[in-house]
C-alpha cells in the first residue's frame, strides 16, 4: 500500500488571485497524493482554499485565479501545463466533478436525459439514440426511479436529492478514475445526505473510483474518507489516515474542528460543543509565523515568528505544528 504510486499527485501547488494591486496567494504550496481506489477528504472552514484546490485539478478556476506554482499530475502526466484541448478531453471522462448545489448545477432549460447524454456524445461520440439509452442506464445505476421517464423531465421536476443523483450519474457516466466531490451533501437534508453518501460509497466500491471529497463537516468526512487532509488558510496543516486522525489529532486546529462536531457516542468527549475562537484571517492579511497562532490555544513565542515545519508523527501522519515538531 505504502509503495503504490499515487494516482493523482498535487505537488507544491499554489493558486493566486490576480487583483489590481498584485497577486494574493490563496493556496500555498499544497502537497497531497490520492491513491487508486482511495477516498481523500479535504476539510477546512470556508475560505481555506479547499474548493479552489479541487477546481484547479481540472483547471476550472474562475477568471482572475491562476496556478502560480507547483504541479498536478495524473499518473505522472502534468495537468497544469496540458493544452486546453487535452484537459477538456479529460474532464468528465477521466476526472469528473460534482458540486454543492444540485439546484443550480443542472441547466434548467434542458432535460435530464439530454444533459446526461451529452457526456456520452462528447467523450464516446455516441449517436443521439445510443447516448440516450446509455443515459437511462446511468440514471438507473445511481438509483433514480423510472429513469426512462426521468430522462424526459427537467431539473425543476426533481427533488434536490434526485438532482444530486443525476449529477453523480453524469459524473460517473464515463467511469472516471477520479471523482471530485465539492461539498456534495451540504445542501441536502440529513436523510437525503445519508442516502447520497451511501450511494457514493457503493459506487466507489463497485467502480473503484478514487474520490476527492471536500467538506467543512468532519463528521461526513469521517464516514466516507480513507485519508484526510486538513486545510487552513491555503495550507495543509495535518493529514493522516482517517482512523489515525480521529484517534490522535495533533494539530490544535484539527482538535478544534473535532470539538465543533457533535459526538453523541464518544465517552471521552465533553458534552459541550466548542468553537474555535476568532475568525479565519483574510487572504493577503495572514499573520506571520504559524497562520493559526492568533486562534491557537497553545501558541508559543516561536509560533508567532516562524512557520512550523511539516513533520511525520506516525505512519502517513503529517502535521505542521511546533508542538508536534518539538515532541518528535
Amino acid at each position, binding site marked *: 500500500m505504502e509503495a503504490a504510486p499515487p494516482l493523482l499527485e498535487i505537488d507544491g501547488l499554489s493558486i493566486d488571485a490576480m487583483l489590481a494591486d498584485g497577486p494574493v496567494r490563496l493556496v500555498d504550496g499544497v502537497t497531497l497524493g490520492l491513491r487508486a481506489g482511495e477516498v481523500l477528504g479535504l476539510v477546512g472552514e470556508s475560505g481555506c482554499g479547499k474548493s479552489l484546490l479541487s477546481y484547479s485539478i481540472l483547471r476550472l478556476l474562475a477568471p482572475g485565479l491562476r496556478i502560480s506554482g507547483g504541479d498536478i499530475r495524473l499518473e505522472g502526466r502534468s495537468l497544469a501545463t496540458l493544452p486546453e484541448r487535452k484537459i477538456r478531453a479529460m474532464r468528465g471522462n477521466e476526472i469528473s466533478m460534482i458540486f454543492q448545489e444540485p439546484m443550480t448545477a443542472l441547466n434548467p*432549460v434542458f432535460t435530464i436525459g439530454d444533459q446526461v447524454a451529452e*457526456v456520452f456524445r462528447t467523450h464516446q461520440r455516441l449517436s443521439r439514440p445510443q447516448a440516450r439509452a446509455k443515459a437511462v442506464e446511468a440514471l438507473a445505476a445511481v438509483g433514480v426511479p423510472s429513469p426512462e421517464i426521468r430522462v424526459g423531465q427537467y431539473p425543476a421536476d426533481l427533488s434536490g436529492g434526485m438532482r444530486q443523483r443525476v449529477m453523480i450519474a*453524469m459524473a460517473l457516466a464515463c467511469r472516471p478514475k477520479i471523482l471530485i466531490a465539492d461539498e456534495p451533501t451540504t445542501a441536502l437534508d440529513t436523510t437525503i445526505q445519508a442516502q447520497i453518501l451511501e450511494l457514493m460509497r457503493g459506487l466507489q466500491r463497485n467502480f473503484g473510483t478514487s474520490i476527492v471529497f471536500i467538506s467543512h463537516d468532519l463528521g461526513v468526512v469521517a464516514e466516507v474518507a480513507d485519508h484526510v487532509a486538513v486545510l487552513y488558510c491555503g495550507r495543509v496543516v495535518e493529514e493522516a489516515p482517517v482512523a489515525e486522525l480521529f484517534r490522535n489529532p495533533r494539530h490544535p486546529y484539527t482538535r478544534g474542528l473535532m470539538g465543533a462536531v457533535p459526538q453523541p457516542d464518544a465517552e471521552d468527549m465533553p458534552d459541550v460543543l466548542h468553537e474555535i475562537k476568532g475568525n479565519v484571517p483574510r487572504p493577503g492579511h495572514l499573520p506571520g509565523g504559524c497562520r493559526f497562532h492568533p486562534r491557537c490555544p497553545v501558541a508559543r513565542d516561536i509560533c508567532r515568528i516562524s512557520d512550523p515545519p511539516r513533520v511525520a508523527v506516525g505512519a502517513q501522519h503529517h502535521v505542521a505544528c511546533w508542538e508536534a515538531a518539538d515532541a518528535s
Partner: protein
Amino acid sequence: MLSYVLKRLSHTLLVIVGISIVSFVFLQLSGDPVGLMLPQDATSQQIEDLRHKLGLDDPVVVQYLRFVGNALRGDLGRSLFSNEPVAALILERLPATVELAFFSMAFALVIALPIGIVSALKRGTLIDTASMVLALFGLSMPHFWLGIMMIMLFSVQLGWLPTSGRGSFAQIIMPAAAMGISMVALFARLTRSTLLEVLGQDYVRTARAKGLPEYIVIGKHALKNAMIPLVTMIGMEFGLLLGGAVIIETVFAWPGVGRLIVQAIMDRDYPVVQGAVMLLSMIFVIVNLLVDLAYGWLDPDVSLRRASK
C-alpha cells in the same frame, strides 16, 4: 401547457376589451370631426344633421356598443372622408408595415447578437468597449436624422439606393437600417448583460466540468438561457414596430400604417383612428401572447409553474 395557453388567451381578451374602451373614450375627448367636415359657414342645422347621420348625437355608451357590435362582425366603419371601409384601408397598408418591421428586426438582430456575444466573451477588452460604444452611438442618433443622412449619402452622393417608396428590395434597405440601428444597441447590450449573468451560473461550470467544448458551453447551455429575456424584448420591440414607424415612413415615403394613422388624426377621421388603434393594439397583444408561449418552450419552468397556479 394547455391550461397555460387558455389562461393567457383569456387575459389577452380582457386586455383587448380594455383597450377598446380606453381608446374610444380618449377619442371622444379629442373633439368633433364635424367641424372639419363641413365648410366654415355651415348652419347649426346642417351640423346637427351631419352629427345625427354619423350617430354622434347618441350617448357615448350607445356609440361604443355600436362600434363593438360592428367590429365583431368585421366592420370597423367607413372613413369620414374617403368613405372607404376602415378595415380595408388598414389591411391595405399593413403588409408594408409588417415588411418594414420584419426587415428592421432582422437587420438589428443580425448585427446585435454577434456584437453582444463577442462583447460578453471578451468582456473588458478593447473589442467589448468598442462595440458597446458603437452600439450606444446607434441608440443616440434620432432615426429621422439618420434616415436623412442615409438618403444624402447613399442616394444623393453615391446613387446606390432609391430615396423612397416601396416595391423593390433596394427600397427597403435604408428604412429598415434606419429603424434597426437603434435596436442594435438595445439588443447588443441586453445580449451582453444576460449572457454575462448566465456565464456565471453553476450550470455553465457543470457544462465545462463535463468536458464539453466551449462552443457547446456557450452556444447551447449559456445561449438558450440568455435567450429568455431577449425574446421578451424582441417581442415588445416587434409589437411597437408593427404600430408603424411614423417618422421613418414619412422620411422614406413608405406606405405603411403609421402614415395612415397620422393622416387620420389630422383629419379627425374617427373611424379610421379608432379602427387602426384597435387593430394595432390587437396585433401588439397577440405578439406578446406569442412571446409568452415561446417562453414555455424556452423555459420549461414557466409553463409548469404558471399552469400549476
